[in-house]
């Protein structure tokens, strides 16, 4: 069953059609990847799914009910969480605080004003648990602004994990990471996949990663859905190959 569905979803930026009548179904508790060259509209498509942008046409459904008009906040509360391609953390808070604020939201501790946050030890424990997963434990007390780029990417993922949503939308989580850091992130994604209780949607360029993990792959090209299928089907798809200029989509790294 599809947990997330779009029907003829489109958005236009002053004449430029960034996403063009895309209709897809994201199967529940499966691993779906979205690929496509830079500028294909992948991030914009995520922005539509998570409510950062409102579509100029079409509709979005979550578990069968329409969510097209809902805000980003409402969609997160419903269970659609996302990470950002351009790192989007809180620079003047510590790494731990960044994650804790996300944990706090998930736990619905929103308006408590009188108790010191240290009283909420279970949130701290959960935040530390997540930091350990992404290998940031020793950076917990550092200001997020002072992290290296790859570490900020990890924090971005940690914040998504902390939200503990049914759907995880990951926008190029390993982009700009050093090669040594990538396996750790792949391990985290695999672990979530193996729990089989989450729906993962991943935007990536690293084809080996996609071939290895995806149940289904969607290809966006000039804002349109060019193809969908199993990883094997996509590799063999001629339209996809010509879109990537003769199958040159191994080793795309941007």
């Amino acid at each position, binding site marked *: 069953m599809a947990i997330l569905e779009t029907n003829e979803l489109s958005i236009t930026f002053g004449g430029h059609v960034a996403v063009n009548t895309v209709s897809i179904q994201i199967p529940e508790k499966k691993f779906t990847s979205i690929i496509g060259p830079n500028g294909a509209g992948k991030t914009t498509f995520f922005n539509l799914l998570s409510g950062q942008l409102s579509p100029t046409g079409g509709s979005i459904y979550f578990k069968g009910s329409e969510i097209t008009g809902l805000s980003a906040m409402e969609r*997160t509360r419903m269970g659609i969480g996302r990470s950002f391609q351009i790192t989007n953390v809180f620079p003047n808070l510590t790494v731990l605080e960044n994650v804790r*604020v996300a944990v706090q939201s998930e736990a619905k501790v929103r308006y408590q004003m009188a108790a010191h946050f240290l009283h909420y030890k279970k949130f701290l424990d959960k935040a530390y648990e997540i930091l350990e997963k992404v290998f940031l434990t020793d950076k917990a007390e550092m200001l997020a602004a002072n992290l290296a780029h790859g570490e900020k990417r990890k924090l971005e993922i940690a914040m998504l994990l902390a939200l503990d949503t049914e759907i995880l939308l990951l926008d190029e989580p390993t982009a700009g990471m050093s090669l040594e850091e990538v396996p750790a992130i792949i391990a985290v994604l695999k672990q979530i996949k193996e729990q089989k209780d989450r729906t993962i949607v991943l935007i990536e360029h690293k084809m080996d990663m996609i071939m290895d993990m995806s149940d289904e792959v969607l290809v966006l090209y000039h804002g349109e859905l060019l193809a969908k299928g199993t990883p094997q089907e996509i590799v063999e798809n001629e339209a996809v190959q010509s879109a990537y200029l003769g199958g040159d989509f191994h080793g795309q790294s941007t």
Partner: protein
Amino acid sequence: MRLGNIDKTTWIYLGIALALFIVPFILTGRSAQFIMIQIFIFAIFAMSYDLLLGYTGIISFGHVMFFGIGAYSTAIFMDRLDASIGALVLAVAVAVILAAIVSFIVGMLTLRLKSHFYAMLTLGLAGLFLVVAEKWRPLTGGFDGFTFRVPDLLSTSESLYTLSLISLILIFFGLRRFTNSPFGKVLMTIRENEERTESLGYNVLHYKVIASVVSGVVASFAGVLYMLSLRFVDTSVFATDITIDVLLMTIIGGVGTLVGPILGAGLVELAHHWLSGLSDVHWIFERWIILYGTVYILVVIFFPLGIVGTIRKKMAKRTAVQARSIKK
């Protein structure tokens, strides 16, 4: 709460607070005590301002209106009812409720919009309050204002000192709790990145409006204390100069901290006092605004984080260096 749970900085603050209670026995002069009282009052006011500016990232150009609401409530109740503690309690209640209502309405109207709307609407409303205070002569005495008596209990300089200091201490620790609560952390994430806070599932508008209300209420209480110390009210309690004063106090001391505005209030009030003493020497010392502009520019250039912010950053750097050298 067990004593063992209280952290070191809290003990330091408590120590300083206790020491301040002894000051009136040393500084026995009325004018010295008066300056200290002014510092305490403006420290409270500046903390309330920093809750908006430093913690939540909301700019207000009319914060003085809450101060003025507190001031006029007190003056009018003392004048019209009687100079009793009962009337004072009533004045505080009215001030707090009025400030809460006004800050709630202003917040609901503007905080969902871009940040300058809040700044402009508060500025406009403060101007409106000023005009009303000027025109509603029978109640306010208009431009000239009026003098009034305060409850006997608070008529000595020492008792007022004690009341202001106790208020400062309670509000400081209260706001410290507030900013360190789960709620307070969300205010900081709003300051850092509003959209991201929303996408984590927080209703940003609710947080901003609540911050606006808490800030307005605290500011109105500062206005109440101010009246008890002056025993005279005129329309200057709604003047934009006062907003600029607290803005300066907050920025000099360090935005996003509570100790910063207290230090800033101390420095600015002392500078006021000292400079007005110099006005006999040269007319330029009467022109606050020139000096302010200069100080303001210098601070923004050399201490963009304010005093407390700069010290904190230095200390954070040092601990980071230490941590690194320990690892090696």
